[in-house]
């Protein structure tokens, strides 16, 4: 039987960011949502060993966290002794559990939310990595080339500004997305880098983190298909990811660059088609440019080979 505490740790590691994202969307406040998720995890630590692992751990945590958040909001409303909008609180309680798809979308939208232009871009990236991608302060410091203490201070200052300046946790409108793309792409790139070159653990690559970054990259491309930046980022990640299998041997040990056999990833047809599709996605959308796109596949290959020359 699976140990409830292990299962909880897994759920938090894999689903934690999504649970938080869902909750932030409903309560409109990151600090309240973060506290509520923490409280829910504490409850799970008490409950699961006693009553068993729930059939849907994520749903369980989300529901309990929401209840905690509502309690917190009620306390605050009472303490303020000002007019209370109980209808809003009821609304909050009635909201349905989001489906898997919505929860994923939440996470990406909330990365955009974190990338508020009133924050410095480094702060935007760090905040999103910490709260929505589940990276530790040490991991963020490593990937953004800062000391851990400086990063901890920056995150604290950022949170303070959000609270003091009343920066809203509002999902930005479609028209606001392009301005925030640079930071969002920075978040995804940094996330991929964390998986590509982990600072902790024995593994050469953290495949889960890499896959998560690519997944988010795809979502951004879908969200703003006409923007070149996410498409370029996704192409870069796919290129890099195609090389991933050559970086370690069967035993999981590092293979030095000069000894790597890079041919399998590179010559794979499906891989080439994938990159071509993403590099050319904006062109492919326009039927008239399909012939152009066809000839551009050659260009995609040329780019790949150029990169191989540079890297290899």
């Amino acid at each position, binding site marked *: 039987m699976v140990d409830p505490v292990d299962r909880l740790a897994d759920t938090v590691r894999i689903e934690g960011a999504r649970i938080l994202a869902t909750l932030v969307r409903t309560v409109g406040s990151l600090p*309240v949502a973060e506290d509520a998720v923490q409280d829910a995890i504490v409850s799970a630590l008490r409950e699961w060993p006693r009553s068993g692992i729930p059939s849907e751990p994520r749903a369980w945590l989300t529901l309990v966290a929401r209840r905690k958040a509502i309690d917190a909001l009620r306390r605050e409303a009472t303490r303020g002794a000002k007019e209370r909008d109980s209808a809003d609180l009821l609304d909050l309680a009635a909201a349905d559990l989001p489906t898997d798809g919505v929860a994923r979308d939440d996470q990406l939208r909330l990365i955009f939310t974190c990338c508020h232009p009133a924050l410095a871009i480094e702060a935007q990236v760090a905040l999103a990595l910490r709260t929505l991608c589940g990276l530790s302060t040490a991991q963020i410091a490593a990937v953004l080339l800062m000391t851990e203490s400086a990063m901890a201070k920056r995150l604290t200052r950022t949170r303070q500004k959000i609270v003091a300046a009343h920066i809203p946790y*509002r999902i930005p409108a479609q028209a606001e997305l392009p301005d925030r793309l640079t930071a969002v792409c920075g978040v995804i790139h940094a996330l991929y880098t964390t998986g590509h070159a982990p600072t902790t653990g024995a593994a050469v690559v953290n495949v889960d983190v890499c896959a998560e970054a690519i997944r988010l990259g795809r979502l951004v491309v879908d969200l703003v298909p006409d923007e070149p930046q996410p498409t370029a980022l996704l192409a870069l990640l796919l290129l890099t990811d195609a090389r991933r299998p050559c970086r370690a041997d069967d035993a999981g040990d590092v293979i030095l660059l000069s000894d790597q056999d890079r041919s399998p990833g590179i010559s794979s047809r499906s891989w080439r088609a994938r990159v071509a599709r993403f590099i050319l996605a904006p062109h492919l959308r326009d039927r008239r440019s399909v012939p152009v796109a066809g000839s551009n596949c050659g260009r995609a290959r040329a780019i790949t080979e150029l990169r191989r020359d540079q890297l290899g």
Partner: protein
Amino acid sequence: MRAFKARRPDRGAHHAALPGPHLHRGRGLDRPEQADTLTEYRQFGEQNRATIRSAAVLHPTATATVVRVVGARGGNVVTADGPYAETKEALTGYYILDAVDLDAAVEIAARIPAAWGGAVELRPVITWA
């Protein structure tokens, strides 16, 4: 956004909008070329009356006096001519705005004429409950 109401029933985040060097910029307020700017400010004030709690225009920093008390409270009062910080860009006035959050405050601040001639600094105001 509904959740916001639930979180902050008072609905009042106040921001101070501090217009930058637009109005003064080395010119006297009484010069004819300032008339347009003043009209713009007057329009801004009228159109945003509902959100402006209070406002003031300040004389240029050449008229400033810095006050210090030497040592501790009750010490000698020392006054000095000139602004506290000698900078090229100085605040020319302030607005206290009623805005539900920063996004709303930015929207109002973007209509202050100084925003396109210079800059507007937005700072949250601390409210003592």
